[in-house]
């Protein structure tokens, strides 16, 4: 690890000011950033911790919406979102292992936008709103490809506001080594339509499977997916699975999510 300056601001304004330094970087749970730094693959001049900002970690039900603070750990979501949004709580409770879930945060996961992260699937499938210190960004605009988001320099994910679906389910097929999703699908039955988001599979990161959404919006049953096959082009191909296999798994995981809900 290279030397860096460590700051622990107690307000968002202080954090934003601290970020102005060149090569300064936010630290949330550190579950991706710290291993990267240990391997000397990242060399921030300054780490600005979000962990001392009051009110940054919370799960708040508000009518038909559930708002989760950017600094909320996966464990807290898995416990506190259980009654309001069980599909999300179940996703959070299956991220990584207990150590990761006790440190990793939803804001950190969304800002990093790993193509095999779990949260982006739920955010995109529900059409959630990513709230920053400057604005609100709709999920469909937020994710812009592998490790790429709509966030600007100095912009901090302060919360995510989920419209709570009528029913939802996250089905994950684990990559054998990392146990990240090799393919995982989040099916959200919203008021009026069904949305399906896929993570782990695409070279472009999380995406919506529109053909499945249309079929499931018309008829919310596993049979509605019969005959639908996601094409293999653009899917990740590596030592764990070919693009063709990943494309196949998208169909299997989506169907299983629907079966779980019907």
């Amino acid at each position: 690890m290279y030397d860096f300056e460590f700051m622990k601001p107690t307000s968002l304004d202080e954090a934003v000011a601290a970020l102005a330094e060149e090569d300064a970087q936010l630290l949330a749970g550190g579950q991706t950033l710290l291993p990267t730094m240990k391997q000397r693959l990242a060399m921030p001049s300054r780490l600005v911790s979000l962990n001392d900002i009051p009110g940054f970690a919370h799960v708040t039900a508000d009518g038909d919406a559930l708002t989760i603070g950017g600094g909320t750990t996966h464990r807290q979501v898995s416990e506190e979102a259980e009654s309001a949004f069980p599909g999300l709580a179940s996703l959070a409770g299956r991220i990584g292992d207990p150590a990761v879930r006790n440190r990793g945060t939803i804001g950190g996961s969304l800002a990093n936008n790993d193509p095999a992260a779990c949260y982006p699937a739920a955010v995109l499938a529900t059409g959630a709103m990513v709230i920053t210190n400057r604005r609100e960004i709709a999920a469909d605009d937020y994710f812009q490809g592998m490790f790429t988001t709509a966030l600007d320099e100095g912009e901090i994910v302060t919360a995510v506001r989920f419209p709570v679906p009528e029913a939802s389910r996250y089905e994950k097929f684990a990559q054998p080594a990392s146990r990240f999703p090799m393919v995982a699908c989040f099916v959200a039955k919203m008021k009026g339509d069904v949305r399906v988001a896929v993570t782990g599979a695409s070279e472009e990161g999380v995406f919506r499977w529109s053909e499945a959404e249309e079929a499931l919006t018309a008829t919310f049953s596993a049979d509605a997916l019969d005959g639908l096959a996601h094409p293999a082009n653009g899917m990740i191909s590596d030592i764990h699975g070919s693009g063709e296999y990943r494309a196949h798994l998208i169909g299997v995981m989506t169907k299983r999510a629907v079966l779980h809900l019907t």
Partner: protein
Amino acid sequence: MPKDGGIGASTKRREDVRFLTGTGRYTDDINLPGQAYVHFVRSDVAHGRIRSIDPSTAEGMPGVLKVFTSKDFEAAGGIPCGWQITSRDGSVMQEPKHPILAEGVVRHVGDPIAAIVADSHDQARDAAEALEIDIEELPAVMNMRDALKDGATQVHDTLDGNLCFDWGFVEENCEAVDKAISEAAHVTTLELVNNRLIANPMEPRVAIGAYDMAADSHTLYTTSQNPHVIRLLMGAFVLNIPEHKLRVVAPDVGGGFGSKIYHYAEEAFCTYAAKVLRRPVKWTSSRSEAFMSDAHGRDHVTKIELALDAEHNFTALRTQTHANMGAYLSTFAPAVPTWLHGTLMAGNYKTPLVYVNVKAVFTNTVPVDAYRGAGRPEATFQLERVVDKAARELGIDPAELRRKNFITEFPYATPVAVEYDTGDYNATLDKVLEISDWAGFDARLEESRAQGKLRGIGLAHYIEACGIAPSNLVGQLGARAGLFESATVRVNATGGITVMTGSHSHGQGHATTFAQVVADMIGIDASQVEISHGDTANTPMGMGTYGSRSIAVGGSAMVKATEKIIAKARKIAAHMLEASADDIELKDGAFTVAGTDKSLNWGDVTLAAYVPHNYPLDEIEPGLEETAFYDPANFTFPSGAYVCEVEIDPETGKVEVQGFAAADDFGNVINPMIVEGQVQGGLAQGIGQALLEACAYDADGQLLSASYMDYAMPRAYDFPMFKVDSSCQTPCTHNPLGVKGCGEAGAIGSPPAVVNAVIDALHRAGHKIPHIDMPMTPNRVWSAIYGGAGPDKDGETMEERSVGA
């Protein structure tokens, strides 16, 4: 008293107290005053010519003491190889130099080019980034078929091609085997890959070199399974340090699985640099370095043919294997695909004719050497797969085909040069069928089918040669070492005992089991016996721990030394009791005179040995300390039968192990609980090989599985509860404890059981798939069923690596 803690008792592991409370003392826990740190600069290309190294900037960096390159080692030797193989044509194997730091050419990703020593590790790493190295990248030789083509790029310019050796065994049988196969009623053929693995012990390798100027002596602390072997190899062949000036200490070691047998360049570097710099020099491997610098395991590509007569008797077996050596010859690499593999090809069967051909090949990959089982898993895998395939082709029960061909009379001389002293293969088969509830499989199959899952059951037998090994025999086979073991039993004045053993424990539990043996022999409590190992300064020359040899060879040495102790103690007791030594009995820690009520406690006699006031000084010396060296008369031959039951999700191809039963014959068992733990660990590694683990390179020689993000280690939740039984016991006939060794069995017998189960599940579902290579990942199983594309590299591994075709 001894019955509770003696031979056969499941005494809890005494060493676990310190391991589980964080008070173990591993090499990295050792920090010496004034210690400096080395960082190795390693090649990031698989093959390249070093045009230049400019250390000037790096040497000027803060804290940097020195930048070492190969120039600093011109007087040193290369890392030696401990076994020489002779090819079919009588020529000896090609043996390239393995330098401490690359001499002009790098030959695999991870090959060390330079070493930077600084006051802190961070400073050494900073300087490494400033080191200017210009490398001309050369084409990499990655698969064995390409490596043997005419005009192939050579891994070593100095050699003739990339073939290390071409070994035939037993060469005199070659023609007879060919004839038997051509005339057979049925021949079953199978081509398969034994996947390359990385051992991944929990503790990475560490080395600390220290030099005492006043005494002109060196100390190396290292994560080794055999400190005396390192002292001999490094002292005599690499650094020219006589053994009396070199102490090697291997303290607590957190797992080895073979990967810590070998002498590595980092050990020689730290020892040497400590003298140059007059400061201790420490290296702690990162996990990333471990992936590209620890010796890898397996990596065989094989074609096997089994001939049967009309009555289903095995009549001949022929196997052709290409074995990957990597870029250099690691310490015991040539022995693994030859003597540890070919001699086991008869398996548990009375096949009269066997011929084994092995071509060992250099490639631009990390050196390959022994990994838990070492050659025996490779032999067992191909044999038990081809037997299973033959049963399927002939439409007969796989258990019955095995029974029909089992060796049943012992001793049995195989056609591959070894003699099995004892065994009962029907007994382990009966036992495993019972504990696996083989008979109840159909009901479980129906349950799986109702859930939309496929289900299969697979059987495999194994035999292994352990207790390595008779020195005169292995000498004839090319070993450059003896394979005896040693022990010193030191009885203290008040009766407590310290045993200094040449065996080395890195998870095996010797502190517990070895103490059980000595305590049982004397009849004292095991808490009175302490086991010491791992330091060449206070243990007799020993060969260390690998090949499931510790209790069979090290234990036998300890028994011999203890027998000497008892014989001497009996003489002392006879003097004190005024009786003849022949009339003295030792039982439950007391000496008695037969037919009288005269007796002395163990402690009375040991005290007399050191306070010899009433002592036969004219007949025997005072003191009570004896050493024994034990050289085994034969290998030991543990055997067993394993059953694996799997369920497959046909939509994803994911295999789940639903049941695993192991019935092993280890001969006599010292501590059943520890034996069960050893088997369970071996099963985890063997099932890991079958379903998860694969070391993968791309065509340019980049290591793709270079971290746990891509190298799939098994986890507890990947397994069901194992059923492990070692109640079938045919004691070894040629060592004093009647023991055979249990460390590797699980990893040897389990991979074919898992593959047999998967193939069985597929066939029961109508998918007539002859074989799937390991690891049977979800993608591979799905592709086998539906014909879809497999994971990246499969095109290469399946087609190009199938050189035996």
